[in-house]
C-alpha cells in the first residue's frame, strides 16, 4: 500500500506537503481552508513582535514562470496573531509558526511566544530578501545562523526549523551552522533577490524596488540547494521553491527532502494544488514501486556520497 505519511522531527504529517510561509496564512480561516484543501501541514506567515504594514505597492510582479514579491513582512504582531493560530489548529494538521526578528533575543522571544500559542514547531525566517534588518540580512553568515538557532533552542522545547537563503555562495555552510546551533531541520529555499524595472516608468516596479523571486523559475536552484545541504548535514531537509506538480515534489525528495512546501503554485492553481500534488506523488510511487515517501528521500545521491 502506497503511503504518503511522513514524520519530520516528531511532526506527523498525512502527506509530505506543507503550505509555505507567507502564502494564504494571515488568517486562521484561510489556513483552515488550505488544510481542508489537502496540505499535510501549515507554516504561518512570518510573524514579528509588533504589527507591520509592509511595503507600499506594488508588492507583486507576475512573470511567466515566477512571482517577484516584496510584501515586506506585513503581520499583525504575535499578540494579535495568536487568535489566528488558535483558529488554524482546529484543522488537525501540524501548524508551524514562522517568526522573524532583528536580533537573536527577539527571535528567541518570538519562538517562545509561538510555543506558548501551541504550534507544533517553529520556523525561523533567516532568509527574507527584501526587509531591511530582518530575514536574509541577519541570516547570511554561518555565525549568525548558528547563534540564532542556539538561542532559540535554549528557549523552546518544540522542534526548530531554520529557513535559509539561497542568496549566498554556500547554502551548505549555512545549513551546517544551523545544525551546529541545534536546529532540528532546515528549510530551503526562500526567494532569490530580484528586481523588475518598467522601462516605460523608468523605475523598479516594486514599491520596495527589490523583491524575492519564487515559483517554477527558481526550482532548479532550490533542488540544487537541497541536494547540497543533504550532503552537508544529518538533520532533515524540507524543500521549497517552485513546486507545482507531484513530479516536482519528488525531484526535491530525491534531492534529499523529507517534506516539501508549496507557495507560489497557489497563484495559478489555487489551494486545490495540494490534493493534486499528493495524487501525483501517489501515482508516481505506484508506477515506480515505492511504498513510503521516505524510500525516495535522497536517492538521487545514490552511488555518489
Amino acid at each position: 500500500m502506497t503511503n504518503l505519511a511522513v514524520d519530520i522531527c516528531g511532526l506527523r504529517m498525512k502527506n509530505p506537503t506543507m503550505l509555505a510561509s507567507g502564502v494564504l496564512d494571515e488568517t486562521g480561516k484561510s489556513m483552515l481552508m488550505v488544510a481542508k484543501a489537502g496540505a499535510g501541514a501549515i507554516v504561518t506567515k512570518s510573524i514579528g513582535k509588533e504589527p507591520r504594514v509592509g511595503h507600499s505597492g506594488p508588492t507583486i510582479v507576475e512573470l511567466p514562470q515566477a512571482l517577484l514579491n516584496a510584501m515586506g513582512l506585513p503581520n499583525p504582531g504575535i499578540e494579535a496573531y495568536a487568535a489566528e493560530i488558535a483558529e488554524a489548529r482546529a484543522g488537525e494538521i501540524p501548524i508551524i509558526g514562522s517568526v522573524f526578528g532583528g536580533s537573536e533575543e527577539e527571535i528567541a522571544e518570538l519562538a517562545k511566544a509561538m510555543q506558548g500559542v501551541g504550534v507544533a514547531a517553529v520556523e525561523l525566517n533567516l532568509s527574507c530578501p527584501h526587509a531591511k534588518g530582518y530575514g536574509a540580512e541577519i541570516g547570511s553568515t554561518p555565525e549568525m545562523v548558528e547563534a540564532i538557532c542556539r538561542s532559540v533552542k535554549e528557549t523552546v522545547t518544540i522542534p526548530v526549523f531554520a529557513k535559509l537563503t539561497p542568496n549566498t555562495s554556500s547554502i551548505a555552510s549555512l545549513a551546517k551552522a544551523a545544525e551546529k546551533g541545534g536546529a532540528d531541520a532546515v528549510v530551503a529555499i526562500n526567494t532569490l533577490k530580484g528586481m523588475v524595472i518598467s522601462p516605460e516608468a523608468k523605475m523598479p516596479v516594486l514599491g520596495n524596488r527589490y523583491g524575492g523571486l519564487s515559483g517554477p523559475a527558481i526550482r532548479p536552484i532550490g533542488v540544487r540547494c537541497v541536494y547540497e545541504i543533504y550532503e552537508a548535514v544529518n538533520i532533515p531537509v524540507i524543500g521549497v521553491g517552485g513546486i507545482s506538480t507531484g513530479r516536482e515534489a519528488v525531484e526535491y525528495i530525491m534531492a534529499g527532502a523529507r517534506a516539501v512546501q508549496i507557495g507560489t503554485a497557489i497563484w495559478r492553481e489555487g489551494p486545490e494544488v495540494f490534493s493534486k500534488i499528493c495524487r501525483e506523488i501517489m501515482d508516481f510511487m505506484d508506477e515506480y514501486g515505492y511504498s513510503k515517501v521516505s524510500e525516495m528521500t535522497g536517492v538521487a545521491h545514490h552511488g555518489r556520497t
Partner: protein
Amino acid sequence: MVGLRIFTVSDHRNETPTIKSMRFKETLIAAPGQFVMVWVPGVDEFPMSVSYAGDRCGITYQIIGEGTKALAMKKPGDKIGMRGPYGRGFSLQGKKLLFVGGGAGMAPLAPLVEMASIKGAAVDLVLGARTREEMLFESRAAVAGARMHLSTDDGSIGFKGLATELAQIVVSKHSFDHMYACGPEKMLVKLLTISTEKGIPMQASLERVMKCGIGICDSCAIDGKHVCRDGPVFNDGDLRKFAELGKSKLDAAGRKIPV
C-alpha cells in the same frame, strides 16, 4: 511580464467633486465587476473596478488617500500601470433586475447596467449618494434605459435617507428576480436581509485591502475566502455565510478591525 501593462491616459474628467474617471488609449477586456490593480509609478498600487471595458477602457475612482490623489494629477498622455483584470465579476441573470449602487459603488455596476439593458432586461436602479452632486453615473444609467430611483443623505435630490431605505420601498412596489449591489458594506448587509426576506437572489461586490490581487497574500480574506480570487462579486449564498460581513476586515498589517 504577464500581468503588468502600461496604459496611456486618453482623458480624465470629474464625474462628481470627489470622483473622477480616467480613460485609456488601450483596450482591456474585462467582465463587469472585475477589477485591475492600478500602479501609480513612484506612489502605490491599489484595486479599482473596470468601469469602462473594451476599447478606451477606464476606471472611476474616489479620491481617498495618497494613491488616488496622485492618480488625480495625471494628464492625457501620461502613463500608468495596470495588471488584471482579476477576479470573478457579476453573472447576469434574470429579466427584472434591481441595482443598488452607493457612492463609488456605481463604478462596477455601470457597465453591468448597460449590458443588462442591451440584453433586454428591465433595470431599476437605486442610486444613493451623500448629496446631489455626488451622484455617480446617473445619466450614464439613464441613457442605458434604467428606471432611476435616487436617494441622498441630505435630501438635495430624490429620496432623503439611505439607499437601502429607498430600495426597501422599491422592492415593496415592484417585483424583481435578481439584485445587484455595490457600496458600503453596511448597505450590503441590509440588502442581504431584503434579499432573504423577499427571496430575491442577489450578487454584491465586496472591498477588502488588496495587496497581491492574485489569491496568495491573504490580505483580502473574508472567512477563508478571498475577495480578489473568489470575488469580488459574491452571491447571496456566500454572503450569508460570511460571519465577517459588515463586521470586521483586515487592515494593511493583517489586524482585524471593524468594517
